């Protein structure tokens, strides 16, 4: 299948004065898998509906391979959509569902049969053609929806939270399956989800959205390690948010909070005011014995443990008032530092980042 590129240029959409999507621009390369990630109400589903043509933008252009599709009705676009509830036609068999788009395109009957069969084979449902959608499991229905969207050889495929209704155990399996099919078909894909782990594991790139705007677009690892602002830093993964005073000394930034004083390389900071928030992931904090010279965050009192199987998160209150979540591999932390014990805490500052308040 030939892949196509998508370009969204300053697209905006309001509903009764509320900006659902505010001047969003995004470029998606041929064959790329891009996820729109954000909390509910961030505008990701509205943006998806704009791309599909279910909504008309107030401003901006949407282009496929450089040609505008902004004014085309949904049926005039060539975009496959997989809906959150799958939206399979209940009065048709699985094969009829998949054949629907081909019939609308007036594909000759003989070719329809072959292509439907091929599409169902691709999603490993070759046996289910004569069944009704309601006779299939959620995961199978979802694959039918995928086959129905892919069989028309669309220029793009849009997936709206396709795994949200699927049992958690099956979800991981379905994600692998989706990735396999997407790679095999090589189709440009826009995926919408509020589930960050889903986004991190599937996407080539992720566009994090909040309040109708794209906050950051980048590859998953970059998003986790170099968030662009407060929102992305808090939204992706777990993080300690530590308030501090910021002063500039030569090339370095000096952060102070109570008895703690830290020097931060300028590459880790976007600080313009004298108050800031230091973001440190739990795995960038290390529990040490009290008095250890490496413990640059000073001492803290252990308040609780969160046992997670492969690791333990130690929740500790620092002398300066910071509440810290310190990740420790294995479970020895439970015995070594019981509740009430004092620990020294080291922050690996090369993995921390500072934003102005």
């Amino acid at each position, binding site marked *: 299948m030939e892949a196509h590129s998508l370009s969204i240029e300053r697209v905006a959409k309001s509903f009764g004065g509320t900006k659902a999507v505010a001047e969003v621009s995004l470029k998606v390369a041929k064959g790329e898998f891009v996820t729109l990630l954000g909390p509910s109400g961030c505008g990701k589903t509205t943006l998806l509906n704009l791309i*599909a*043509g*279910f909504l008309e933008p107030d401003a901006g252009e949407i282009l496929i391979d450089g040609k505008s599709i902004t004014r085309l*009705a*949904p*049926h005039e*676009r*060539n*975009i*496959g*959509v997989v*809906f*959150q*509830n799958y*939206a*399979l*036609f*209940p*009065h048709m068999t699985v094969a009829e569902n998949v054949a*629907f*788009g081909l019939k*609308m*395109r007036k594909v000759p009957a003989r070719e329809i049969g072959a292509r439907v069969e091929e599409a169902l084979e691709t999603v490993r449902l070759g046996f289910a053609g004569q069944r009704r959608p*309601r006779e299939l499991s959620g995961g199978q229905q979802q694959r039918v929806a995928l086959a*129905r*969207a892919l069989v*028309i050889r669309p220029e793009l495929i849009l997936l709206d939270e396709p795994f949200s209704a699927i049992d958690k155990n099956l979800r991981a399996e379905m994600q692998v399956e989706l990735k396999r099919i997407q790679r095999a078909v090589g189709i440009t894909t826009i995926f919408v989800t509020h589930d960050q782990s889903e986004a991190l594991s599937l996407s080539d790139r992720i566009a994090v959205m909040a309040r109708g705007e794209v906050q950051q677009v980048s590859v998953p690892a970059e998003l986790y390690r170099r968030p662009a602002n407060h929102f992305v830093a808090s939204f992706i993964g777990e993080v300690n948010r530590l308030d501090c005073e910021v002063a500039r000394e030569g090339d370095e930034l000096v952060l102070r909070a109570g008895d703690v004083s830290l020097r931060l390389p300028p590459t880790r900071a976007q600080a313009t005011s004298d108050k800031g928030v230091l973001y440190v992931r739990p795995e960038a904090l290390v529990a040490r014995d009290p008095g250890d010279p490496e413990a640059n965050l000073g001492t803290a009192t252990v308040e609780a443990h969160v046992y997670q199987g492969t690791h333990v998160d130690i929740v500790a209150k620092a002398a300066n008032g910071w509440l810290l979540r310190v990740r420790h591999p294995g479970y020895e932390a439970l015995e070594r530092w019981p509740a009430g014990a004092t620990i020294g805490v080291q922050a690996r500052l090369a993995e921390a980042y500072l934003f102005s308040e």
Partner: protein
Amino acid sequence: MRPDGILRLAFGAVVAATLAFALLPSVVVVITAFGEKSLLMFPPDGLSTKWFVRAWTYEDFRSGIRNGLLVTAWASGIALVVGTLAAFALERFRFRGRDLLEALLLSPLVIPHFTFGVGFLILASAAGMSRTYSVVVLCHVILVLPFVMRSVYVSLKNVDPMLERAAASLGARPLQVFLRVDLPLLAPGLAGGWLFAAILSFNEFTATLFVTGQRTQTLPVAMYTYVREYADPTMAALSTMLIAATAFALAIANRFLGLDRILSIQAGH
């Protein structure tokens, strides 16, 4: 006996009593129809089928059935089309005057049929169309419209708008979306609405009394005229035949459409 056992027994008794009470008049009518004397009496003092013969051959009843079927066919057909379009507009679109339109279309549920009958009688004579079929049909269309609309409206609510979007994304033009997705999914609701409309129209009496004449009178009006003159079991015989015919029609509908689907008992899709 355990408490829930007693409760179940009591519940069963109430259901049985209700059913018996509801069926009692019909049973009495059916038995009376086989009486001997030319008086409506229960229990009957003989056995005869002559009243069935009389009911079947009585000319006013025969023409009443013919007129009734004609009016019912037109009225339920027109109400089905108008009611479907109205229900579709009310469910899928938001427009000015939507609430007013809904109230108007449902108003026959609250305004007495008698009022409609008188109103149509006055209008028809003003338009010089007194006692014509078109006035009877028009009157029935308005009376049964709310039932068609309700039925279609409920089925439309069960049609997921996402299905329409899915069809559009697969290349279906708006008319194709309606014909290939909406219509097949609405079919049970449409059939149910039509069935209700037909039964109501065929049995309608109050308004019909005002707008029909000797030539256009429907069966209920003919029956009313009959009981004003005679008190023999012919009426009971006719009623028995109507019960049998209706039961037969419902059995057929159940066989080919499924009554549970027609009455939208099944939830969801």
